[in-house]
């Protein structure tokens, strides 16, 4: 997979899972815990609203070569 700069929904959820596990283990200090918790709440809100407001996108691929010729050629010429 290529490295994408933008944080995807999956990345966010994964991070949330990580934070959740870390907090559950309870091995980290209070200050870090609070920071993680704040990060988690932020991520939760982002994920929630992304999913809540999502609308399914549907695109249709056109066959590029119809009868051996590209569509664009036959329509443009």
């Amino acid at each position, binding site marked *: 997979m290529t490295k994408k700069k933008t944080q995807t*929904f999956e990345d966010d959820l994964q991070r949330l899972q990580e*934070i*959740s596990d870390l907090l559950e283990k309870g091995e980290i200090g209070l200050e870090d815990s609070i920071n993680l*918790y704040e990060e*988690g709440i932020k991520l*939760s809100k982002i994920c*929630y609203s992304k999913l809540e407001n999502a609308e*399914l996108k549907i695109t249709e691929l056109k066959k590029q070569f119809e009868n051996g010729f590209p569509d664009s050629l036959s329509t443009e010429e």
Partner: protein
Amino acid sequence: MNHILSVSELTSSIKNTLEENFGDINLIGEISNFKAHVSGHWYFTLKDSSAQISATMWKGVNSLVFFTPQDGMKVIVRGKITVYPPRGNYQLDVRSMKPAGEGELQAAFEKLKRKLSDEGLFDVKHKKTISKFSNKIGIVTGIGTAALKDMISVAERRFPLAELVIAPARVQGEGSAEQIVASLKMLNNQNDIDLIIIARGGGSLEDLWPFNEEIVARAVFDSRIPVISGVGHEVDFTITDFVADLRAPTPTAAMELATPDKRDIFAFINEFFYYSSNNLTDKINKEKKEIAQILNSYGFKSPQDNVRNKSQFLDNLVFRFQNSVDKKITYDKNRLNLIKGALQSNNIDKILKKGFVLVKQKGNFVTRESNFIKDESFILKFFDNEIIIK
């Protein structure tokens, strides 16, 4: 001598005889030496246990055959005998072809399955993992089909963050296998498709046959993008199902396998809110308890006690000091009074010793004549004694 025929005359005569008498026949036989030429024409032999005949099926008509014939398959064909004079041979020009029975398709299915299995196309090691979150899902299916509608509504319900990229293909009849292959390749040429679903609703064995074609199976195998197959109903198994990275029993089920459920994600987020804040509260309480314990520990307590002890000691000191000072003051005061008294009496005594007398009336010394009360008894005080005079 009889009339001597030329080869052309004989051949022409044979051609007329054969083509008139066998202009429209039905023939049952087993296919062998099947070849699909690049031109699109089919060349093969039909045979039984003791005879054989060459056959052709031209491009325009063979596209109507829903299956690709295989060697060993028993078929019923309809066509006519033609004679090709330059070669001096006769052959069957096939117009239509169908399997001699459902068993024939089943046999073809088993044969292809064995072949591909032997080649390793079904091996688990080739199966790609299906990501839990696919952002772009390619779909190979018929436009306007119930299967497509079902898949769209499942995606909408479960994971509307996804994008569906539909690569339309005929999924039944003429040329469908080729179209499915083309659509699979088209999706593989896109650079951001995460997953492909190849799907078709339920139907007869004949309807589902494109998914049992070798070219489709190989295209699925060659796909660099993971493929989920969802063809027919639960009971239907196709060759495509065996090659696919994941087999779903139906198109609906395929989309369910391809997408996470929105409700699960919401539940996960809610759980995070609930458990994580609980965890954090627990942590804070634990820390608080620890602090309280430290404050109560001996080490922390002893300085406090020390302070208290010292302050009590100090209070004591102050108290004692104050006490002694007070006592001293009282003592000195008393002494002072005594001395004062002594001093006073000392003064009067000295004067009396010189022979003076003091007159006392009603307990007071009479120091003026005007203070003297006549007819009242008085006391004369000498140095050594007093006399009462009435």
